[in-house]
């Protein structure tokens, strides 16, 4: 493999890791506060559709992004209602949200555009265009560093940079602010937070909202930056890979970045090479597809370091009387 190919694979790793990273951080906020969310997939899908649809209608990708975030937030509120207010089963609520998004997006797409459940292709201002960072031209002549800067660091859409900036931001919010302390506490021992006079319900709703916004950006990225328009089921299990990455990262922001980059690399390699011939044997593409899930099961099994979820995860909080 030559240097140019390697750069291309790494470049597509960054592109493919971005939606995973946004969704993974979304899940991180939610699960750290004790709300399991297997509805990441559905929220991304809803956001992908509404961002593409509104961007196609208005021709303005920022309107699309807004609509995507709103759609994802609406599903978040539903999840909050079910799992916080009515103390229902958070996992079942997530399943319902996934199906709701899968069905409604196609239904509305067919009604609005009559193109078999897809949106028209986005052109011009309807898409997030790559940003050429300053200095690309100047560095172009420098060997190795020049191409790396041009391919890998510069030339991505704004949302990619947002996603990567979210990692230190999440870390800071979680470990260096009062809000973050309360957030982590509410996922471990909500009764303690309640005793301290902080509203468990309010805090959890805020966190579910943050999760919705991040999933909204992830979905909008899929439909308006990575691709040019919405197609049926375009999230293709990314919400679950993000969930896997979250467990892989043991619910920590920096590790989430590494896990998402790893899973993004696997996707990029599977996309570029169908079957990988290692000489002695051939690695089938299906194995590459399944690898994130297999790795997650191994991690969950606790054979390679134990993944311990937040203690109060999945449990609705009932105030003692």
């Amino acid at each position, binding site marked *: 493999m030559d240097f140019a190919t390697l750069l291309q694979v790494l470049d597509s790793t960054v592109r493919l890791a971005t939606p995973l990273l946004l969704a993974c951080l979304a899940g991180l906020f939610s699960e750290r506060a004790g709300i399991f969310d*297997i509805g990441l997939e559905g929220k991304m899908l809803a956001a992908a559709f509404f961002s593409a649809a509104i961007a196609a209608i208005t021709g303005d990708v920022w309107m699309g992004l807004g609509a995507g975030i709103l759609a994802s937030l609406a599903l978040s509120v*539903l999840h909050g*209602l*079910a*799992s916080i207010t*009515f*103390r*229902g*089963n*958070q*996992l*079942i*609520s997530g*399943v*319902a*949200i*996934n*199906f*709701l998004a*899968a*069905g*409604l997006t*196609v*239904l*509305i797409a*067919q*009604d609005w555009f009559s193109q078999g*459940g897809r949106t028209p292709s986005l052109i011009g201002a309807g898409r997030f265009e790559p940003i050429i960072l300053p200095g690309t031209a100047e560095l172009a002549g420098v060997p190795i560093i020049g191409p790396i800067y041009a391919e890998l660091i510069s030339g991505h859409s704004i949302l990619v940079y947002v996603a990567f900036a979210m990692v230190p931001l999440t870390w800071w919010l979680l470990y260096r602010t009062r809000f973050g302390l309360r957030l982590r506490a509410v996922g471990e021992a909500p009764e303690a937070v309640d005793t301290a006079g902080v509203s468990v319900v309010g805090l959890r709703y805020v966190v579910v909202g943050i999760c919705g916004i991040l999933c909204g950006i992830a979905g909008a990225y899929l439909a308006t930056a990575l691709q040019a328009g919405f197609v049926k089921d375009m999230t293709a*299990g990314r919400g*679950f890979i993000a*969930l*896997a990455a979250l*467990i892989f990262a043991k619910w920590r922001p920096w590790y989430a970045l590494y896990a998402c980059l790893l899973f993004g690399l696997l996707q990029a390699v599977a996309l570029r090479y169908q079957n990988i011939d290692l000489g002695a044997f051939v690695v*089938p593409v*299906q*194995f590459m*597809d*399944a690898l994130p*899930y*297999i790795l*997650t*099961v191994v991690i*969950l*099994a*606790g054979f390679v370091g134990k993944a311990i*979820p937040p203690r109060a995860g999945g449990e609705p909080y009932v105030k003692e009387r």
Partner: protein
Amino acid sequence: MDKMPGWADAVLVPLISLLLAAILSALVIIGIGEDPVAAFKLMVDGALMRSSGWGYTLYYATNFIFTGLAVAVAFHARLFNIGGEGQAMIGGLGVALACLYIPWPNWYVALLGATVSAALFGAMWALIPAYLQAKRGSHIVITTIMFNFIAAAVLNYILVNILRPQGAMDPATARFPEAAQLPTFQDMFSTAETAMFRGAPANVTFFLAIFMCLAVWVLIWRTKLGYEIRAFGQSESAAKYAGISPVKITVVAMLISGGLAGMMALNTTMGEAERLVMNATEGAGFIGIAVALMGRSHPLGVLLAALLFGFLYQGGAELALWTNIPRELIVVIQALVILFTGALDNMVRMPLEKLFLASRRKA
């Protein structure tokens, strides 16, 4: 505290949830500019008014009975088996291997053998998540989700690279031999004068599904193992105190659940397609969640809910054929049923409970 009567809990709450889901679905249909009453009429016409419509309704219902029972058995042990889809896929592999490589003398021996094989393969696919949950505390919901994706990759690999006949393009096995093909309702119920269930895929597996309803009822409410499963589901600490092994119950309940999910493939693979195709499960593994929730994890409830979803599926296909309403409407209805009967259960239950308590206080 007083409780509301059992019948209200078992019948009224699901019915109100269903009503809410129906109202919202009607609003969705109005939202996309169609007439919900006409749509419902069309669904009833297509699914229930002709014997061939019934043939499709019962065919879909058969799938949902198996996967619904699978989820229900796990629910009794307070385990959420979201992996029915993957277990059914691998179950299909069991069916295909049994049908292709064992020379069966006739269909009923073949059905027996394939049933055992499907159940074994499905159970095997549930074993690792069950073991990890029981021994290492890995959350079964996450592991079974992961196993769904792994199952899809495994099946894809096996169909494309191993079981696909030479020269064939689509990833599917060869057609099963004659002796391993099941009689359909058309073969069974048609007389010389009138053809019944013409062209419909419903087949003898339906009766196997009914039998499994009965078997699950006996298992859960009439055997020691069933008692232990329910006790474990009600309270793990109490069960432990009574000498019930949590590891054993978790593994056994998941094996039964996976086996039931695997048997679903009999209907689609042996009964209908007569070969194993890539998407043999048709999403039934997930519908099993809705069916089990609506059926309150009781075999009779599962049967009724499966029939309802069979009707929705066949009716939805008719809608897609004759109107501008895509099949995805069924996915929306399914989501609403899961939402109201599962996640928002308390929203329906709490006011109802208050109502019952208030009326009792007056009396």
